[in-house]
């Protein structure tokens, strides 16, 4: 087979396969289906506020724009042990009972690892922060615009000058 023809065929096939669903989560629905967690819309909205405190909107989208709270819920629901899901739910219940100002203070204190915090709530915060960061870095927006992830780099340089970054 001629080289150019082979490349063309591969690219056609590769390109064809890229037309696959890419925005499974961005359906605009108020909530997502959960198998294990029992979360109502108010709690979901408060979770969204907490993720927004972790990754706020600046001149680029923040957690709420990227629906990172739904990603947090998805991961906790599908990938965490029952006992951790219970801690998450209890922690979320705890922060939902706080007034808005108290809640903001709680996030600041939990991030500063302040003592005398509610244990479940503290662990809840760490799960949320961890998954919010992961969801952010692996979001389509960040991977397409800010820290570009390349599907086909086509190169490797083991002596790339740092000054050229």
């Amino acid at each position, binding site marked *: 087979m001629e080289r150019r023809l082979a490349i063309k065929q591969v690219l056609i096939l590769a390109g064809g396969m890229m037309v696959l669903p890419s925005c499974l989560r961005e359906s605009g629905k108020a909530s997502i289906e959960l198998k294990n967690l029992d979360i109502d819309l108010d709690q979901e909205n408060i979770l969204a506020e907490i993720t927004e405190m*972790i990754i*706020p909107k*600046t001149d680029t989208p923040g957690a709420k724009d990227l629906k990172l709270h739904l990603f947090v819920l998805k991961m906790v629901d599908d*990938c965490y042990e029952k006992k951790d899901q219970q801690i998450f739910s209890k922690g979320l219940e705890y922060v939902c009972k706080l007034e808005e100002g108290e809640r903001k203070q709680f996030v600041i204190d939990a991030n500063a690892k302040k003592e005398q915090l509610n244990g479940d709530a503290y662990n809840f915060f760490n799960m949320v922060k961890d998954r919010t960061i992961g*969801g952010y870095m692996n979001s389509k927006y960040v*991977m397409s615009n800010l*820290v570009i992830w390349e599907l086909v780099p086509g190169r490797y340089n083991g002596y790339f000058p740092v000054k050229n970054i």
Partner: protein
Amino acid sequence: MSNLNIDAVKKNTYDAIVIGSGISGGWAAKEFTEKGLKTLVLERGRDVKHIVDYPTTNKYPYEFEHRGEVTLAIKKENPVISKCYAFKEDAMHFFVKDNEHPYVQEKPFDWIRGYQVGGKSIMWARQTQRWSDLDFEGPLRDDFAVDWPIRYKDIAPWYSYVEKFAGISGNSDGLPELPDGEFLPGFPLNAVEDYFKKSLKDKYGNRHVISARCAHLSQPKQIHFDQGRVKCQNRNLCQRGCPFGGYFSSNASTLPWAAKTGNLTLRPFSVVESVIYDDKLGKATGVRVIDTNTKEVTEYFAKVIFVNAAAINTNLILLNSKSSRFPNGLGNDSGVLGKYVAFHNYSARINAEYNGLKEFTTDGRNPGGGGYIPRFRNLLKQETNFKRGYAAGFGAYRTADTDTSGIGADLKSQLLTKKPGPWKVGSHMMGETIPKESNYVSLDADKKDPWGIPQLKIAIDYDDNDAKMKKDYIEQLSEMFTEAGFKNIEVNDASQAPGLDIHEMGGVRMGHDPKTSMLNKWHQLHACKNVFITDGACMTSTSTQNPSLTYMAFAARAVDYAVNEMKKGEL
């Protein structure tokens, strides 16, 4: 009626049968069909067609529901396969789930399997290092197992033969312990890998870091374009299957090549229950196949049968092929079938940081695996308190220097920093283990798999030699890292069960003497000359190199011999 039977037999008769479509079966299929033989390839799993059956190959990380992670439910259902490094959301459809093919662990053994056309050649780590006579002569020199009936000169031309077709990238390093081959350009070492290479050379002389040789098309030739494969695009998403055919797999290379000859019949969903032995003819006549969907039993016939079912399943098929001549399994006059199984000891890693060479980082991705440290222990003579030695991987990389302690806009700008942190370096051990009679697989007397075939019992363990070797690896690599000025050295004694290395070998070993081995120097069963084994089961010893390249060469060489024997009327 008898005419109908004769017709049925005729319809199910081929010149050659190959059991398994993985890396060695694919090669056997290519060689037989190219030489004009009508060949039936039996595969117990589903078909996986190149490109069209790689459903995740062009997905971005955010297109995976859990960004690559395996859910807790899947992990709990699959405690064994979940330990495999490549069992992630993007490639888990290529691995056998624990309950799909049960086995009995007399001792813990993580059996990692890929049941589909192409087998594990889709997800393999693509490392391809030749053996030398320092490996083939190992058992004789160091008094273990039995002597290999072949030497490097027997296999060297076949290494060349398979390398040219598969496409192997590497440098000619001029090391007798790791012979050079037919290489496409090697992937380069990076700044710190090169630095460590120089550091070892200066301080030890006989310890080397080379660019790992790998089955990637760094610069394809016409023979690769003819296969429909093009240059490796440095995606490092290989375990998903490559739409460019940038690395070698049965699916991208040998099987489509075999199909083009018109001589290939590929039958997926076909698990081989046993090889049929005819007492009167004194040879094997065919195989008994169970359709994995319908459970229907069909017999297929051929003059010659290659068993390439992957090491442990090849043992299973032979153990289950009982006849009045061979009550303990096909060709098992010696009683060694299923015994002397060995593997590679991958149970230690070491990581550290390096603060130098901060003016460099890497750009793009290196699909070749970075550095490879060939065996340096006991190489030319015995010099430690353990037998044999280990090879090691070596890699260096930098990640972004991110401080995640904050929240808010601060955290956001930290996450988006492109400033690289310190170089991180890591090595993993690839130790030779000594085949022993007490490391064996056998058939369970009662338990059956979903197709009514006896389940395998696996009893394989580390020994004192492995423990001493691991200790030495940790000491030597720690010293080598320290000498190079690496800091924050961390040893990870992973203590994983055998099996997770995915390099299980033996059970149907080669040897000179039919009393102590199963196969002769041409990979024929001593006692049943038209059955050949060229996958991991044939290995007399394991040495340290990733074994797949050697299986490819074995398969091509054995088919060449088999076809010549058939022409002479000997088979």
